[in-house]
């Protein structure tokens, strides 16, 4: 295989967002070193400014429809990639804003924190563009390195160190599975690019290879049975990192999963539907049931996250264009609701130094705004109309109904009922129980921005989802050829709002 690398100016344009971010994170790191007396908050706002520039660049790509491939198809820019990059950059901006207060708790390397977050974001942006198995491996590891450090960032905190170490060991283990899987697939087909792999026959080596790759990606998204790192890591990590970890890498991993299943494995759909249905059912059920027993809000959200991933896998199991749309839309709703919920956890944690659910007793008396926002986020996660989560679940279930996955939907509906319980337990504690310490709580301006953004997104997507639906439908146009009745009807008209 010859490898020629010729880059023209037009090719470089495709890399513009990544290059901008690379330059910018170097600027942030340099400023941190060069100006030791600069308040670290400034670095946060500087990072956000840079990310805003990248976001503007991506929006331009999306509107102008700029696309193409680079490096012998290793790197692709299409509307799907741009969607996920916007998702990742948006998440990163909100996470950085939510970190400003928390970073004051760190005793060392406050400035490097922002640098590492930006690095991880850069890695995930590359993941969204990964178009062959090699770039999948490289970008996945690239983005995860930043997280290994971030999870263990609380150096004095045993839980944080333990979380970082566990994440690292299991992550390396998953990377091993991934590398092994890639080597098997390459050995069987001699190809690496997703669109080339589409093999006519399923040899055992190919099956094992893809299953191992799925296991590694399953680790990344935290699907059962590859979820075991999630609770401990989420619990021990600094809360903003947990928030980041629970959203952005999931989006990036789904970008790869969608490409792998919808492009490379489209021909074997009957074979992998069972795999995804199984993973989805296990994730939803396990996540929701174990969440009931949690006493720590971060662990609760960790298990709830596992269950939410199970919901998103429903869309993947549908394996149609509409399933793809639904995944993208669901991720958007999940971004706003989950990040919003974590923002409340961060804010409350900063103020009362506790993440125990008991300490949310009477939150409504102490801060009606925080309690109300948390209520909205939890109800959206539970899928209560007219909030975003309801439309997301509806969309994904509709996609599955079109494919006749009735068992999966039945399990999903039962799980919604179970999840309602633990979400409402938190609501009950906030609204009905008496607070032990009735002193009022106030939150800082950057935190308010994050909570307002979460509320706005959750309400907007729930009440007027049509613009977002149009966007995700456009982002997955390349899958219009996929079988299924949904492909014939590219737009979903929801009964609400749209």
């Amino acid at each position: 295989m010859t490898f020629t690398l010729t880059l023209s100016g037009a090719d470089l344009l495709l890399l513009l967002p990544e290059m901008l971010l690379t330059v910018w994170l170097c600027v942030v790191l340099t400023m941190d070193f060069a100006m030791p007396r600069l308040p670290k908050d400034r670095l946060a706002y500087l990072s956000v400014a840079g990310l805003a520039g990248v976001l503007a660049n991506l929006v331009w790509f999306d509107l102008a429809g700029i696309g193409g491939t680079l490096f012998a198809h290793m790197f692709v820019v299409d509307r799907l990639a741009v969607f996920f990059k916007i998702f990742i950059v948006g998440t990163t901006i909100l996470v950085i804003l939510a970190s400003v207060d928390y970073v004051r708790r760190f005793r060392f390397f406050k400035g490097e924190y922002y640098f590492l977050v930006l690095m991880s974001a850069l890695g995930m942006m590359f993941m969204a563009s990964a178009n062959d198995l090699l770039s999948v491996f490289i970008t996945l590891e690239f983005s995860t390195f930043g997280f290994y450090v971030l999870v263990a960032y609380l150096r004095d905190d045993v839980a944080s160190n333990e979380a970082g170490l566990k994440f690292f060991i299991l992550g390396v283990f998953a990377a091993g599975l991934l590398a092994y899987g890639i080597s098997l697939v390459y050995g069987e087909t001699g190809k690496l690019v997703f669109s080339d792999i589409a093999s006519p026959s399923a040899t055992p080596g190919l099956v094992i290879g893809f299953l191992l790759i799925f296991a590694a990606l399953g680790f990344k998204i935290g699907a059962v049975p590859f979820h075991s790192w999630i609770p401990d890591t989420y619990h021990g990590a600094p809360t903003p990192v947990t928030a980041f970890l629970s959203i952005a890498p999931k989006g990036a991993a789904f970008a790869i999963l969608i490409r792998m299943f919808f492009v490379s494995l489209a021909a074997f759909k009957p074979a992998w539907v069972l795999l995804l249905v199984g993973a989805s059912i296990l994730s939803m059920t396990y996540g929701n049931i174990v969440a009931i027993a949690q006493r720590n809000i971060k662990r609760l959200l960790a298990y709830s996250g596992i269950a939410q991933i199970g919901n998103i896998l429903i869309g993947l199991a549908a394996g149609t264009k509409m399933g793809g749309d639904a995944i993208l839309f669901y991720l958007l709703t999940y971004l706003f609701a989950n990040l919003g919920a974590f923002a409340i956890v961060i804010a409350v944690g900063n103020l009362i130094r506790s993440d125990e659910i008991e300490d949310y007793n009477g939150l409504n008396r102490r801060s009606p705004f925080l309690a109300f926002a948390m209520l909205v986020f939890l109800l959206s996660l539970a899928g209560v109309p007219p909030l975003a989560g309801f439309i997301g679940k509806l969309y994904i279930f509709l996609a599955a109904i079109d494919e006749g996955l009735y068992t999966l939907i039945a399990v999903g509906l039962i799980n919604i009922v179970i999840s309602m319980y633990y979400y409402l337990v938190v609501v009950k504690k906030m609204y009905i129980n008496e607070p032990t310490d009735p002193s009022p709580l106030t939150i800082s301006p950057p935190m308010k921005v994050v909570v307002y953004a979460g509320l706005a997104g959750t309400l907007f997507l729930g009440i007027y989802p049509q613009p977002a639906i149009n966007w995700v439908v456009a982002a997955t146009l390349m899958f219009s050829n996929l079988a299924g009745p949904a492909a014939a009807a590219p737009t979903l008209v929801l009964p609400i709002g749209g």
Partner: protein
Amino acid sequence: MLYTLIPLLPLAAFLILGLFGHWIKDRAHLVAVPAVLTSFLFSLFVFDEVAGGKNVTIPLYTWLTSGDLRIELSLYFDRLTAVMLLLVTIVSGLVHVYTIGYMHGERGYARFFAYIALFTFSMLMLVMADNFLQLFVFWEAVGLCSYLLIGHWYERQTARDAATKAFIVNRVGDFGFLLGVLLIWLSFGSLEYRHVFAQAADLTGETLNLLSPIGGTWEVSTLTLICLLLFLGAVGKSAQVPLHVWLPDAMEGPTPISALIHAATMVTAGVFMVARMAPLYNLSAAAMDVVAVTGTVTMVLGATIALTQHDIKRVVAWSTVSQLGFMMMACGLGAYVAGIFHLLTHGAFKALLFLGCGSVIIALHHEQDMRKMGGLKDKLPVTYWTFVIGSLALAGFPFTAGFFSKDEILVEAWSAGALGKTLATFALVTVVLTAFYSFRLVFVTFWGESRVDPQHAGHLHEPSRTMTVPLVILAFLSIVAGYAAIPDFLAPVLPGPRGLAIHHEHPAAGGMMAIAAVLGLVGIAAAYLVYVTSPGLPDRLARQWQRAYRLSFNKWYVDEAYDRAVVRPTVRLADRLWTWVDVAVIDGAVNGVARTIAWWGWLMRLVQSGQTQHYALGMTLGAVVILTVYLLL
């Protein structure tokens, strides 16, 4: 357009008051009163057009189409509709005006006007219905308004109970009504009046085996069954025995409501319905006999109970029950024209009596017990004189409206065969009772010594002009309505089972008129004798006829019987179901599932050991299981 506006104006008033009542508050009448009065003017116009003999159907829109079923919402106007429109809009308009004074300063002022506007709309739609479903929908709608208005003072427990009772008892009747409508759909394949009436004769021979589900045989004429089921609805709505129990309790509502809904309009809907369905009833002699006998029993029962009640409004309410029975008897004997005639005159004088009661009640600061009244005729002259006119009309005093309509029914009844003669005899007895209790009311309330609470006795005065003007207008109508040639006007649209109605040419007419007038006078004289000349007499009579007195005073123990036979067993059954089925089985199952899931949650939590090697093992095992499944399948 004009036709459509008649119901739409009150609806618009309701919507405005319902949505903006919060801001409109004390100015609510400025919205509702003009709307209803304009409806009245339009009704006059419609009356004039329809009087020429033409029937008008105005389709509004197709409500729903499902297979063969096609329901149009349309307005139907014939002479019967026209007179009902006038009755509803006149009484409603006067009650609207009266309410301005009666409800002045009440908290729910705008809400009250909103509901009576809604009621007026529903009642107008009911009388204008041209198909059974529309009839049923607005039949329910007036029931809902009645419920809302009886419970207007919802902070009172008694008002809430009365509202609930009215609703539930009516539901019993409406259940039958709905079954009747369904049976019509099954038998005729249409719900439109004109189709049903046109095909009704073809159905005469057909029967239905009621016991077929359990293998028995009980053939019943389909038409009779339809008529009886529809009549069940009328029994509920028009407070006929045995579903009459809600009407007296409904007096917990504000008095204008008693006048409008529970005397003049809604409760007469049952009578109106039977008359409207005359083409069906005429084909089923059995159903008509049931209607006639039920009406007669109600008439006698109501009159006997009215004799002994102390609450001024309840006397009038029981009188309403009795008079509704009288009208129902007329319809059952085929005298639809006479029944509707009496319905109209009764609407005028009974509304007058209720509004008069309201005037007394307001003057006495919400005192309703007759024993704490007396001697009011000098203090409340307008109320007194109008009340006397209303009572005379009710008693059938010669040359009042009630005299003519009552006489019409008696003559027709007498000429309707053996059953008719028997029932007419009961009716004559009732005439005496009616005259007696209505003048008992007059004498005890307005004559004799004042027994008024001294606290209020000093400043007794006539209520405001908005309340007295409607009284005077209604008193005027209570006299002149009898001279309108309503029977001749209605006769063409309401043919009886024996062809067109017969009227005064009947040989018995003159004699019956004289007998009824004399019996009415006898009743009045007896009341004078008992309550004016010898004040100790009522108590002595009550002691002497203790058993009869108690029976009447306790309303024949019907409420108690229902309580024992229906209410308590239901409550006990509900209680059992709650403790055994709900708490033990359903809650047990639900909580059991919840506990099981929580238990699994705790168990699976143990898997999260915190040991990294366990986690890695778990992942490996997971991968191995998946691989095995895929490679072996």
